[in-house]
Protein backbone atom coordinates (compact mmCIF):
# COMPACT_ATOMS: atom_id res chain seq x y z
CA UNK A 1 0.00 0.00 0.00
CA UNK A 2 2.87 2.33 0.78
CA UNK A 3 4.32 1.75 -2.66
CA UNK A 4 1.02 2.67 -4.23
CA UNK A 5 0.82 5.79 -2.11
CA UNK A 6 4.30 6.89 -3.14
CA UNK A 7 3.46 6.17 -6.74
CA UNK A 8 0.34 8.27 -6.47
CA UNK A 9 2.30 11.07 -4.86
CA UNK A 10 4.71 11.18 -7.76
CA UNK A 11 1.94 11.06 -10.34
CA UNK A 12 0.02 13.73 -8.53
CA UNK A 13 -3.62 13.55 -7.53
CA UNK A 14 -6.50 15.76 -6.53
CA UNK A 15 -9.08 15.41 -3.81
CA UNK A 16 -12.39 16.26 -5.33
CA UNK A 17 -15.80 16.95 -3.93
CA UNK A 18 -18.75 15.78 -5.98
CA UNK A 19 -22.18 17.20 -5.37
CA UNK A 20 -25.25 15.77 -7.04
CA UNK A 21 -28.12 13.38 -6.70
CA UNK A 22 -27.12 10.21 -8.47
CA UNK A 23 -23.65 9.73 -7.15
CA UNK A 24 -23.66 5.95 -7.57
CA UNK A 25 -24.19 6.46 -11.23
CA UNK A 26 -21.25 8.82 -11.26
CA UNK A 27 -19.01 6.18 -9.73
CA UNK A 28 -20.20 3.48 -12.09
CA UNK A 29 -19.64 5.65 -15.12
CA UNK A 30 -16.21 6.62 -13.94
CA UNK A 31 -15.27 2.95 -13.54
CA UNK A 32 -16.68 2.13 -16.93
CA UNK A 33 -14.44 4.79 -18.44
CA UNK A 34 -11.49 3.28 -16.68
CA UNK A 35 -10.91 6.14 -14.29
CA UNK A 36 -9.28 5.03 -11.11
CA UNK A 37 -10.95 6.48 -8.02
CA UNK A 38 -9.85 5.74 -4.50
CA UNK A 39 -10.65 6.65 -0.91
CA UNK A 40 -14.23 7.45 -1.73
CA UNK A 41 -16.05 8.81 1.31
CA UNK A 42 -19.68 9.70 1.37
CA UNK A 43 -20.42 12.66 3.57
CA UNK A 44 -24.15 12.87 3.07
CA UNK A 45 -26.75 12.05 0.49
CA UNK A 46 -25.55 14.70 -1.95
CA UNK A 47 -21.85 14.95 -1.36
CA UNK A 48 -18.97 12.62 -2.00
CA UNK A 49 -15.26 13.05 -1.65
CA UNK A 50 -12.76 11.01 -3.63
CA UNK A 51 -9.23 11.01 -4.85
CA UNK A 52 -8.39 10.86 -8.51
CA UNK A 53 -5.24 11.10 -10.59
CA UNK A 54 -4.51 14.14 -12.73
CA UNK A 55 -5.24 12.34 -15.98
CA UNK A 56 -8.39 10.79 -14.55
CA UNK A 57 -9.59 14.17 -13.40
CA UNK A 58 -9.50 15.50 -16.95
CA UNK A 59 -11.44 12.50 -18.21
CA UNK A 60 -14.04 13.00 -15.50
CA UNK A 61 -15.42 16.01 -17.34
CA UNK A 62 -17.50 13.89 -19.72
CA UNK A 63 -18.87 11.88 -16.81
CA UNK A 64 -19.81 15.05 -14.98
CA UNK A 65 -21.71 16.32 -18.00
CA UNK A 66 -23.62 13.08 -18.35
CA UNK A 67 -24.60 12.74 -14.73
CA UNK A 68 -25.19 16.39 -14.13
CA UNK A 69 -23.35 16.94 -10.87
CA UNK A 70 -20.85 19.48 -9.71
CA UNK A 71 -17.20 18.73 -9.08
CA UNK A 72 -14.86 20.98 -7.17
CA UNK A 73 -11.25 20.50 -6.18
CA UNK A 74 -10.61 20.42 -2.46
CA UNK A 75 -6.88 19.91 -2.53
CA UNK A 76 -4.10 19.25 -5.01
CA UNK A 77 -1.46 16.89 -3.84
CA UNK A 78 1.70 15.40 -5.18
CA UNK A 79 4.98 16.09 -6.81
CA UNK A 80 3.76 17.70 -10.08
CA UNK A 81 1.88 20.37 -8.14
CA UNK A 82 4.90 21.01 -5.96
CA UNK A 83 7.05 21.58 -9.04
CA UNK A 84 4.39 23.82 -10.47
CA UNK A 85 4.32 25.85 -7.29
CA UNK A 86 8.08 26.11 -7.25
CA UNK A 87 8.03 27.54 -10.72
CA UNK A 88 6.40 30.61 -9.27
CA UNK A 89 8.85 30.74 -6.40
CA UNK A 90 12.05 30.79 -8.30
CA UNK A 91 14.08 32.29 -5.48
CA UNK A 92 13.23 29.37 -3.23
CA UNK A 93 14.43 26.87 -5.79
CA UNK A 94 17.45 29.05 -6.42
CA UNK A 95 18.24 29.15 -2.70
CA UNK A 96 17.92 25.40 -2.50
CA UNK A 97 20.36 24.93 -5.34
CA UNK A 98 22.75 27.44 -3.77
CA UNK A 99 22.57 25.67 -0.41
CA UNK A 100 23.28 22.33 -2.05
CA UNK A 101 26.17 23.83 -3.97
CA UNK A 102 27.63 25.30 -0.78
CA UNK A 103 27.38 21.97 0.99
CA UNK A 104 29.11 20.19 -1.88
CA UNK A 105 31.69 22.96 -2.10
CA UNK A 106 32.51 22.91 1.59
CA UNK A 107 32.69 19.14 1.81
CA UNK A 108 35.26 19.01 -0.95
CA UNK A 109 37.92 20.43 1.36
CA UNK A 110 39.97 18.87 4.07
CA UNK A 111 39.06 20.64 7.28
CA UNK A 112 40.95 18.65 9.84
CA UNK A 113 43.81 16.23 10.06
CA UNK A 114 43.73 13.47 12.61
CA UNK A 115 46.72 11.42 13.55
CA UNK A 116 45.78 8.20 15.27
CA UNK A 117 47.60 5.34 16.97
CA UNK A 118 50.69 7.38 17.68
CA UNK A 119 52.14 6.94 21.13
CA UNK A 120 55.38 8.82 21.38
CA UNK A 121 55.35 10.78 18.18
CA UNK A 122 53.49 14.03 18.58
CA UNK A 123 50.61 14.84 16.27
CA UNK A 124 52.34 18.07 15.37
CA UNK A 125 55.33 16.20 14.03
CA UNK A 126 53.21 14.42 11.44
CA UNK A 127 51.09 17.48 10.78
CA UNK A 128 54.18 19.63 10.26
CA UNK A 129 55.52 17.08 7.85
CA UNK A 130 52.23 17.05 5.95
CA UNK A 131 52.28 20.82 5.89
CA UNK A 132 55.69 20.75 4.30
CA UNK A 133 54.10 18.70 1.53
CA UNK A 134 51.39 21.31 1.22
CA UNK A 135 48.72 19.28 2.97
CA UNK A 136 46.92 21.36 5.54
CA UNK A 137 43.31 22.13 6.47
CA UNK A 138 41.67 24.05 3.69
CA UNK A 139 42.98 22.25 0.64
CA UNK A 140 40.87 20.41 -1.89
CA UNK A 141 40.58 16.78 -1.01
CA UNK A 142 40.64 15.66 -4.62
CA UNK A 143 44.24 16.84 -4.81
CA UNK A 144 45.39 14.32 -2.26
CA UNK A 145 46.64 11.02 -3.53
CA UNK A 146 46.37 8.84 -0.46
CA UNK A 147 48.50 6.04 -1.87
CA UNK A 148 51.25 8.43 -2.83
CA UNK A 149 51.03 10.18 0.53
CA UNK A 150 51.29 6.88 2.34
CA UNK A 151 54.39 5.98 0.41
CA UNK A 152 55.96 9.35 1.10
CA UNK A 153 55.23 9.13 4.81
CA UNK A 154 56.92 5.76 5.00
CA UNK A 155 60.00 6.78 3.06
CA UNK A 156 60.52 10.22 4.55
CA UNK A 157 59.81 9.53 8.19
CA UNK A 158 61.87 6.68 9.51
CA UNK A 159 60.21 6.72 12.91
CA UNK A 160 57.12 5.03 11.55
CA UNK A 161 56.82 1.53 10.29
CA UNK A 162 53.29 1.60 8.97
CA UNK A 163 51.08 4.31 7.61
CA UNK A 164 47.58 4.45 6.29
CA UNK A 165 45.98 7.58 4.95
CA UNK A 166 42.27 7.85 4.56
CA UNK A 167 39.87 10.63 3.74
CA UNK A 168 36.63 10.43 5.64
CA UNK A 169 34.29 13.26 4.81
CA UNK A 170 36.25 16.39 5.45
CA UNK A 171 38.74 14.66 7.69
CA UNK A 172 42.11 13.31 6.74
CA UNK A 173 42.98 10.41 8.96
CA UNK A 174 46.60 9.36 9.20
CA UNK A 175 46.95 6.03 10.90
CA UNK A 176 50.52 5.25 11.82
CA UNK A 177 52.44 2.65 13.68
CA UNK A 178 55.61 3.67 15.40
CA UNK A 179 58.80 1.88 14.81
CA UNK A 180 60.30 0.27 17.86
CA UNK A 181 63.13 2.42 18.99
CA UNK A 182 66.36 1.02 17.70
CA UNK A 183 69.48 2.12 19.48
CA UNK A 184 71.95 2.62 16.75
CA UNK A 185 75.00 0.69 17.60
CA UNK A 186 78.13 2.48 16.77
CA UNK A 187 80.39 0.30 14.70
CA UNK A 188 83.67 -0.66 16.25
CA UNK A 189 85.77 1.21 13.79
CA UNK A 190 83.99 4.50 14.28
CA UNK A 191 85.64 6.76 16.83
CA UNK A 192 83.48 7.60 19.79
CA UNK A 193 83.37 9.01 23.29
CA UNK A 194 81.67 7.58 26.27
CA UNK A 195 79.47 10.20 27.90
CA UNK A 196 77.34 10.32 31.05
CA UNK A 197 73.70 9.34 30.72
CA UNK A 198 72.76 11.41 33.72
CA UNK A 199 74.07 13.40 36.62
CA UNK A 200 76.12 11.15 38.86
CA UNK A 201 79.08 10.77 41.14
CA UNK A 202 81.70 8.54 39.59
CA UNK A 203 82.39 5.39 41.53
CA UNK A 204 84.54 3.35 39.25
CA UNK A 205 86.02 3.81 35.81
CA UNK A 206 87.09 0.83 33.76
CA UNK A 207 88.47 2.10 30.51
CA UNK A 208 89.38 -0.58 28.01
CA UNK A 209 90.06 1.76 25.16
CA UNK A 210 90.35 5.51 25.05
CA UNK A 211 91.43 8.00 27.66
CA UNK A 212 89.47 8.31 30.84
CA UNK A 213 89.01 11.94 31.80
CA UNK A 214 87.21 11.52 35.10
CA UNK A 215 88.17 10.03 38.38
CA UNK A 216 86.38 8.45 41.27
CA UNK A 217 84.46 11.03 43.23
CA UNK A 218 83.97 13.42 40.33
CA UNK A 219 80.55 14.85 39.84
CA UNK A 220 79.52 14.63 36.23
CA UNK A 221 76.63 16.24 34.38
CA UNK A 222 74.52 14.65 31.74
CA UNK A 223 76.38 14.49 28.47
CA UNK A 224 79.79 15.05 29.97
CA UNK A 225 82.59 13.04 28.39
CA UNK A 226 83.81 10.23 30.62
CA UNK A 227 86.12 8.37 28.31
CA UNK A 228 87.44 10.44 25.49
CA UNK A 229 88.03 8.97 22.07
CA UNK A 230 90.46 11.73 21.19
CA UNK A 231 93.94 11.00 22.28
CA UNK A 232 96.28 13.92 22.03
CA UNK A 233 99.95 13.46 22.30
CA UNK A 234 102.67 15.99 21.71
CA UNK A 235 104.44 13.40 19.60
CA UNK A 236 101.55 13.10 17.26
CA UNK A 237 100.80 15.71 14.72
CA UNK A 238 97.11 14.99 14.63
CA UNK A 239 95.15 13.72 17.59
CA UNK A 240 94.35 10.04 17.44
CA UNK A 241 90.71 9.14 17.19
CA UNK A 242 89.74 5.85 18.76
CA UNK A 243 86.66 3.88 19.48
CA UNK A 244 86.31 4.14 23.26
CA UNK A 245 85.33 1.13 25.21
CA UNK A 246 84.73 0.79 28.90
CA UNK A 247 82.35 0.70 31.79
CA UNK A 248 81.72 3.51 34.22
CA UNK A 249 79.82 3.06 37.42
CA UNK A 250 78.34 6.10 39.06
CA UNK A 251 76.18 6.83 42.02
CA UNK A 252 72.89 8.36 41.11
CA UNK A 253 69.86 9.36 43.10
CA UNK A 254 66.23 8.72 42.55
CA UNK A 255 63.90 11.08 44.36
CA UNK A 256 60.25 10.90 45.00
CA UNK A 257 57.87 13.03 46.99
CA UNK A 258 54.50 11.74 48.10
CA UNK A 259 51.82 13.93 49.59
CA UNK A 260 49.12 12.20 51.52
CA UNK A 261 46.39 13.99 53.45
CA UNK A 262 46.15 12.97 57.09
CA UNK A 263 42.43 13.49 57.11
CA UNK A 264 40.75 11.16 54.76
CA UNK A 265 37.39 12.13 53.32
CA UNK A 266 34.98 9.27 53.09
CA UNK A 267 31.88 9.71 50.97
CA UNK A 268 28.86 7.60 51.71
CA UNK A 269 25.97 7.55 49.34
CA UNK A 270 22.63 8.21 50.95
CA UNK A 271 20.66 6.73 48.10
CA UNK A 272 19.00 9.93 46.98
CA UNK A 273 19.49 10.65 43.31
CA UNK A 274 18.70 13.72 41.28
CA UNK A 275 18.81 13.57 37.52
CA UNK A 276 18.89 16.32 34.97
CA UNK A 277 19.09 16.18 31.24
CA UNK A 278 20.81 18.30 28.71
CA UNK A 279 20.86 18.39 24.95
CA UNK A 280 24.25 18.98 23.47
CA UNK A 281 24.55 20.15 19.89
CA UNK A 282 28.15 20.53 18.89
CA UNK A 283 29.62 22.40 21.80
CA UNK A 284 26.44 24.14 22.80
CA UNK A 285 24.43 22.78 25.66
CA UNK A 286 20.78 23.31 26.29
CA UNK A 287 19.51 22.66 29.77
CA UNK A 288 16.28 20.69 29.71
CA UNK A 289 15.28 21.00 33.33
CA UNK A 290 15.36 23.87 35.68
CA UNK A 291 16.09 23.91 39.34
CA UNK A 292 19.12 23.54 41.54
CA UNK A 293 20.62 20.36 42.79
CA UNK A 294 18.90 19.68 46.11
CA UNK A 295 22.02 18.30 47.81
CA UNK A 296 25.01 19.97 49.37
CA UNK A 297 27.44 17.17 48.74
CA UNK A 298 27.12 14.93 45.80
CA UNK A 299 28.96 12.81 43.27
CA UNK A 300 28.27 13.75 39.69
CA UNK A 301 28.09 11.20 36.97
CA UNK A 302 27.44 12.07 33.37
CA UNK A 303 26.28 9.73 30.70
CA UNK A 304 26.21 10.55 27.04
CA UNK A 305 23.74 9.23 24.57
CA UNK A 306 24.00 9.69 20.88
CA UNK A 307 20.77 10.44 19.19
CA UNK A 308 20.17 10.83 15.50
CA UNK A 309 22.56 8.51 13.83
CA UNK A 310 22.37 6.60 10.64
CA UNK A 311 24.92 3.87 10.47
CA UNK A 312 28.27 5.50 10.41
CA UNK A 313 26.94 9.00 10.17
CA UNK A 314 26.46 10.73 13.45
CA UNK A 315 25.05 14.13 14.06
CA UNK A 316 26.79 15.94 16.89
CA UNK A 317 23.61 15.83 18.88
CA UNK A 318 23.85 14.20 22.23
CA UNK A 319 21.74 13.85 25.29
CA UNK A 320 23.65 14.27 28.48
CA UNK A 321 22.16 12.71 31.55
CA UNK A 322 23.61 14.10 34.73
CA UNK A 323 23.10 12.00 37.76
CA UNK A 324 23.70 13.55 41.15
CA UNK A 325 24.04 11.13 44.02
CA UNK A 326 23.80 12.63 47.43
CA UNK A 327 26.68 11.77 49.74
CA UNK A 328 27.53 12.26 53.36
CA UNK A 329 31.02 13.53 53.91
CA UNK A 330 33.00 12.24 56.83
CA UNK A 331 36.49 13.32 57.81
CA UNK A 332 38.52 10.58 59.36
CA UNK A 333 41.91 11.17 60.90
CA UNK A 334 44.37 8.50 59.96
CA UNK A 335 47.12 7.08 62.08
CA UNK A 336 50.23 9.06 61.16
CA UNK A 337 52.67 6.25 61.90
CA UNK A 338 50.94 3.70 59.78
CA UNK A 339 50.50 6.32 57.08
CA UNK A 340 54.23 6.93 57.12
CA UNK A 341 54.89 3.26 56.66
CA UNK A 342 52.36 2.98 53.88
CA UNK A 343 53.74 5.90 51.90
CA UNK A 344 57.30 4.71 52.34
CA UNK A 345 56.52 1.27 51.04
CA UNK A 346 54.54 2.71 48.18
CA UNK A 347 57.25 5.21 47.29
CA UNK A 348 60.09 2.72 47.39
CA UNK A 349 58.11 0.35 45.23
CA UNK A 350 57.52 3.09 42.69
CA UNK A 351 61.21 3.89 42.54
CA UNK A 352 62.23 0.25 42.29
CA UNK A 353 60.03 -0.15 39.25
CA UNK A 354 61.89 2.63 37.52
CA UNK A 355 65.40 1.43 38.25
CA UNK A 356 67.43 -0.13 35.47
CA UNK A 357 68.08 -3.83 35.79
CA UNK A 358 71.71 -3.80 36.78
CA UNK A 359 71.42 -1.02 39.35
CA UNK A 360 72.48 -1.70 42.91
CA UNK A 361 70.80 0.13 45.75
CA UNK A 362 73.29 1.57 48.19
CA UNK A 363 71.35 4.01 50.31
CA UNK A 364 67.84 4.87 51.29
CA UNK A 365 66.76 8.12 52.89
CA UNK A 366 63.23 8.81 54.01
CA UNK A 367 62.16 12.16 55.40
CA UNK A 368 58.78 13.05 56.77
CA UNK A 369 57.24 16.42 57.33
CA UNK A 370 53.73 17.60 58.08
CA UNK A 371 52.30 20.63 56.40
CA UNK A 372 48.65 21.75 56.31
CA UNK A 373 47.39 18.39 57.47
CA UNK A 374 49.30 16.58 54.77
CA UNK A 375 52.08 14.19 55.31
CA UNK A 376 54.96 14.80 52.93
CA UNK A 377 57.23 11.84 52.44
CA UNK A 378 60.50 12.42 50.66
CA UNK A 379 62.30 9.32 49.56
CA UNK A 380 65.79 9.44 48.22
CA UNK A 381 67.40 6.28 46.99
CA UNK A 382 70.97 6.15 45.94
CA UNK A 383 72.04 3.48 43.48
CA UNK A 384 75.15 2.51 41.65
CA UNK A 385 74.61 1.89 37.99
CA UNK A 386 76.32 2.05 34.70
CA UNK A 387 76.16 5.56 33.39
CA UNK A 388 78.25 5.50 30.27
CA UNK A 389 76.85 5.67 26.77
CA UNK A 390 78.67 5.79 23.49
CA UNK A 391 78.53 8.93 21.43
CA UNK A 392 80.00 9.51 18.03
CA UNK A 393 82.67 12.13 17.79
CA UNK A 394 81.80 15.09 15.70
CA UNK A 395 85.37 16.07 15.32
CA UNK A 396 86.51 18.88 13.21
CA UNK A 397 90.06 19.99 13.22
CA UNK A 398 90.59 23.44 14.50
CA UNK A 399 93.46 24.78 12.51
Amino acid sequence: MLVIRIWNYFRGYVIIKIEGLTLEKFINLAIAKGIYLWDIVRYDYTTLEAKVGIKGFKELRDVVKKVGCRVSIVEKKGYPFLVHKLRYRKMLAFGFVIALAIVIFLTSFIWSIDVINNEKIEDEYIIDYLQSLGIKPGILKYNIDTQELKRMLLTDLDVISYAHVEIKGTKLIVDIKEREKIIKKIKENVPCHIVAKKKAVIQKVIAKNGKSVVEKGDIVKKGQILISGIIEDPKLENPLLVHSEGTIYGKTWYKLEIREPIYKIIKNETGRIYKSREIKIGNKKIQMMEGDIPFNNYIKKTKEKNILKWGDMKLPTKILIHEYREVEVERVKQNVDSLKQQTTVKGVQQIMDKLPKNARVVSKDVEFSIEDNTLITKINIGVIEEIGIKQKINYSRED
Partner: protein
Amino acid sequence: MSKKVEEVKESLSEMLELPKDIVLDLPKITMIGNLQIYIENHKGIIEYNKQRIRINTNNGLLRIIGKNLSIRTIVTEEIIIAGEIESVEFDT
Protein backbone atom coordinates in the same frame (compact mmCIF):
# COMPACT_ATOMS: atom_id res chain seq x y z
CA MET B 1 -31.86 -22.56 -22.46
CA SER B 2 -29.46 -20.32 -20.49
CA LYS B 3 -30.27 -22.25 -17.35
CA LYS B 4 -29.16 -25.42 -19.00
CA VAL B 5 -25.91 -23.81 -20.08
CA GLU B 6 -25.34 -22.73 -16.50
CA GLU B 7 -25.90 -26.22 -15.22
CA VAL B 8 -23.48 -27.70 -17.74
CA LYS B 9 -20.91 -25.12 -16.77
CA GLU B 10 -21.30 -25.89 -13.12
CA SER B 11 -20.98 -29.62 -13.52
CA LEU B 12 -18.01 -29.09 -15.81
CA SER B 13 -16.22 -26.93 -13.28
CA GLU B 14 -17.06 -29.47 -10.60
CA MET B 15 -15.61 -32.26 -12.70
CA LEU B 16 -12.44 -30.48 -13.75
CA GLU B 17 -12.00 -28.69 -10.41
CA LEU B 18 -11.84 -25.34 -12.11
CA PRO B 19 -12.33 -22.26 -9.95
CA LYS B 20 -16.01 -21.47 -9.98
CA ASP B 21 -15.67 -17.70 -9.90
CA ILE B 22 -13.99 -17.81 -13.30
CA VAL B 23 -16.12 -20.42 -15.00
CA LEU B 24 -19.45 -19.18 -13.68
CA ASP B 25 -18.55 -15.48 -13.68
CA LEU B 26 -19.49 -15.12 -10.05
CA PRO B 27 -18.16 -12.56 -7.58
CA LYS B 28 -15.34 -13.60 -5.30
CA ILE B 29 -15.71 -12.04 -1.90
CA THR B 30 -12.92 -11.91 0.62
CA MET B 31 -13.33 -10.44 4.09
CA ILE B 32 -10.67 -9.46 6.52
CA GLY B 33 -12.38 -9.72 9.89
CA ASN B 34 -15.07 -7.11 9.85
CA LEU B 35 -12.69 -4.37 8.75
CA GLN B 36 -12.40 -4.85 5.04
CA ILE B 37 -14.27 -6.55 2.28
CA TYR B 38 -12.86 -7.24 -1.12
CA ILE B 39 -15.16 -7.98 -3.99
CA GLU B 40 -13.86 -9.19 -7.32
CA ASN B 41 -15.96 -9.33 -10.43
CA HIS B 42 -18.69 -6.85 -9.62
CA LYS B 43 -21.10 -5.13 -11.95
CA GLY B 44 -21.21 -1.64 -10.49
CA ILE B 45 -22.62 -0.06 -7.35
CA ILE B 46 -26.27 0.65 -6.85
CA GLU B 47 -26.30 2.48 -3.59
CA TYR B 48 -23.58 3.96 -1.48
CA ASN B 49 -23.69 5.65 1.89
CA LYS B 50 -21.94 5.26 5.20
CA GLN B 51 -24.37 2.67 6.56
CA ARG B 52 -25.20 0.66 3.46
CA ILE B 53 -23.58 -0.26 0.20
CA ARG B 54 -25.34 -2.25 -2.48
CA ILE B 55 -23.34 -3.77 -5.28
CA ASN B 56 -24.61 -5.41 -8.40
CA THR B 57 -23.14 -8.81 -9.22
CA ASN B 58 -23.99 -11.73 -11.48
CA ASN B 59 -25.39 -13.47 -8.48
CA GLY B 60 -27.81 -10.70 -7.65
CA LEU B 61 -27.49 -7.70 -5.37
CA LEU B 62 -24.87 -7.81 -2.64
CA ARG B 63 -25.81 -5.74 0.36
CA ILE B 64 -23.21 -4.67 2.91
CA ILE B 65 -24.42 -3.08 6.11
CA GLY B 66 -22.13 -1.50 8.64
CA LYS B 67 -20.78 1.69 10.10
CA ASN B 68 -18.51 4.29 8.55
CA LEU B 69 -18.24 2.41 5.30
CA SER B 70 -16.00 3.89 2.65
CA ILE B 71 -14.72 2.72 -0.72
CA ARG B 72 -11.00 2.35 -0.65
CA THR B 73 -10.53 1.46 -4.26
CA ILE B 74 -12.88 0.95 -7.12
CA VAL B 75 -12.00 -0.27 -10.60
CA THR B 76 -13.88 -2.27 -13.21
CA GLU B 77 -13.00 -5.60 -11.68
CA GLU B 78 -12.77 -5.04 -7.97
CA ILE B 79 -13.95 -3.00 -5.03
CA ILE B 80 -12.34 -2.68 -1.64
CA ILE B 81 -14.63 -1.45 1.10
CA ALA B 82 -13.37 -0.53 4.52
CA GLY B 83 -15.28 0.22 7.68
CA GLU B 84 -17.06 -1.62 10.42
CA ILE B 85 -18.95 -4.34 8.56
CA GLU B 86 -21.98 -5.83 10.28
CA SER B 87 -23.57 -7.99 7.62
CA VAL B 88 -23.21 -9.13 4.06
CA GLU B 89 -26.32 -10.40 2.30
CA PHE B 90 -27.43 -11.49 -1.16
CA ASP B 91 -30.75 -10.27 -2.57
CA THR B 92 -31.70 -12.67 -5.29
